[in-house]
């Protein structure tokens, strides 16, 4: 090992010196590929294999063919969980995107106290998900939480976590509250990249703030929006900890989204084969959605937003 790395380095250096494109050799990707293979590809392959087995975690898995998959297609609980996951993902996107976009564009400017406020907005991202979930749980306790005093004021029933709609909205809100700063950061970076000249030209033509936003900022942020949306959607599809701590999938099963159903099936019922089938289905759905979004938005072809400039 000790000899290979320097050799590879020297090889790379040599190439660059000749004036080639200067792309690093494949060897540089080896640690990354190895890491990805050991911690992502291999477990994924095992999960796919397990989805064709029955396994209680103690004896060896027994191959049962398509049993888990036929069961999955008929399972009304899986159907409900898939629907709730879709709903949660949509609500999260609709809730987070506009706010993160506006905050990000604002944070890209040079107003007074912008840095300070941005730092404050960033705090939720630094807290642990568990801590946030427990915090909100305490705030929303119907008998002792803040919601009991504030709720009636705002016209909210203090028992918000006890109602089906309320619980799902709370889960979406808490997730949004936590991850919005992250997306704000992405939009801030995107907005900073927009060339100043575009705005100067627009002002000369007499475009106001709002028109500039819709005709310059938004189109220029197209790719940023794809990045943020893919992350947001995949994040919502794999959202788990908040549900576990705040609602435990309840009331009834009304916040049992796919990842939580997977956890319950795998680590409470110990039906690990069926849980693997749910997990595999989730991976397929999440990957397809990301691919479709990348394809539809033209993000994949990497056309620049600055064409013709």
């Amino acid at each position, binding site marked *: 090992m000790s000899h290979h790395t320097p050799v590879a380095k020297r090889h790379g250096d040599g190439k660059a010196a000749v004036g080639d494109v200067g792309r690093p050799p494949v060897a540089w990707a080896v640690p990354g590929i190895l890491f990805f293979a050991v911690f992502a590809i291999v477990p994924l392959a095992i999960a796919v294999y397990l989805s064709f087995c029955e396994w209680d975690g103690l004896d060896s898995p027994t191959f049962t063919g398509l049993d888990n998959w036929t069961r999955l297609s008929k399972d009304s609980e899986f159907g409900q969980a898939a629907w709730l996951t879709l709903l949660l993902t949509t609500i999260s996107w609709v809730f987070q995107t506009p706010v993160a976009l506006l905050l990000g564009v604002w944070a890209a400017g040079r107003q007074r106290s912008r840095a300070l406020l941005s730092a404050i907005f960033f705090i939720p991202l630094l807290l642990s998900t568990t801590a946030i979930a427990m915090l909100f*749980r305490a705030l929303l306790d119907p008998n002792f939480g803040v919601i009991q005093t504030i709720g009636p004021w705002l016209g909210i029933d*203090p*028992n918000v976590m006890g109602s089906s709609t309320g*619980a799902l909205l709370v889960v979406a809100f808490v997730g949004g509250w936590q991850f919005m700063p992250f997306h704000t950061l992405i939009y801030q970076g995107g907005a900073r990249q927009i060339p100043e000249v575009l705005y100067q030209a627009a002002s000369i033509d007499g475009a106001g703030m709002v028109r500039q936003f819709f005709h310059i900022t938004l189109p220029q942020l197209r790719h940023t929006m794809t990045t943020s949306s893919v992350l947001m959607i995949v994040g919502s599809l794999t959202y788990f900890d908040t549900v576990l701590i705040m609602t435990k999938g309840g009331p009834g099963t*009304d916040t049992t989204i796919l990842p939580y159903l997977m956890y*319950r099936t795998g680590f409470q019922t110990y039906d690990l084969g069926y849980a693997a089938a749910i997990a595999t289905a989730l991976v397929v759905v999440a990957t397809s959605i990301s691919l479709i979004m990348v394809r539809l938005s033209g993000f994949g072809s990497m056309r620049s937003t600055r064409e013709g400039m």
Partner: protein
Amino acid sequence: MRSGIFAQGTRTTRWVSAGAAMAVAGLLAGCGSGGGGSDSGTITAYVYGDDAVKVQQAAVDTFNKTSEVKVKLVPVPGSDYVNKLRSAMGSPSAPDVFFNWGGGSIKPYVDSEDLVDLTSTIKNDATLKDGFLPSIMTAGGLEGKVYGVPMRGMQPVMLFYNKALFAEHRIEPPRTWEDLQGAIKTFKAAGVIPFALGGSDKWPELMWMEYLLDRIGGPEVFKRIQDGDTEGWGDPAVLKTARTVKELIDEGAFGKNFNSVDYGSGAAPTLLSKGKAAMHLMGSWEYSTQLGKAPEFAKKDLGWTAFPTVAGGVGDPANVVGNPTNYWSVNARTKHKDAAIDFLKAMASKSYAQALVDNGDVPTTSNAASMLSGSPNPQFATDQYEMVQKAPSFTLSWDQALEAQYATPLLTEISKLFAGKTTPEQFVEAMKAAR
């Protein structure tokens, strides 16, 4: 210059890689033996990690003084216990001895022949045979065989109440269903929640099902289900139980918010101690919970009684549900079976029972009665002991009595019933169909 750094770099790199290789080797070796019970002369014992671990630790220390084979106690934090045990038992580093709830909680291990059958050992050993209350010994077994030795206090479910509220409204704690209905009306009229219920945790709801079914149909109904007959859910008593639950919810017996109240964070116990709720059906650990969270209330105003009778029910009102106790079981793959059994025998000793009593627990040993006067609360300890001793039947909590593959769907269905998502009829159908 460059070559100099390069030469030096190689030497450093060599050292670094040598170091890394050693670290990796160390890690791998660690994986092989870490937590494993196969070390020479050591027994690994997994125990549910809570405040009571100190009692087991003391017993381990005493045992290690005289024994050649040493016991190593591994406390696993409570919420992770079941999962950690499950993963460990399927791996080469399984514990030799482990804490469990008996019944369905050990069924998968019995099925895969991972446990030592202690039936004959206990029969031939006077200390173990006469050491414990018989109902406790059988409650944790499976199909007439014994796989565990009791090692902690008993945890029957009792009806706790706020004495101050009952005095204020001049009523007595309910003994019959009529009393209970009267109490619900009185407290509702006064704006007090009749029963605190941590519905978001699901298992507190289960306790209501357990007692109602026992009072309505007797312990045989659940026994049939526990023995593997899912048709047992079709017994009319189950439907009546589910309907009774629905009636209680509809008349506001648990207040309006119970779906978002939990036990774990202390919301339900606080309702009782703050006088916002009048009663709370809970395991006997409620006493120590209250003692920890609201000591004033626990000492002065916390009352306890048995679950009332249900009109038209055939179950004996002296029956009890809950967790009879916790047990130590022995892994069949252990290399030190005799030493492990010796360690289990120490659980029947007077000094161990005394240590449990001092910790506020009520031991399940036959000699416990005389020691209870030394308990932190002798009245509570004695009442609890007598309740269990006199009970014709002690039904193990359903979620422990059934295997996880039935218990988890059961908790989900109960939660749906309590949340009003399913009707009592749908509950019965769903349980009959559970795989």
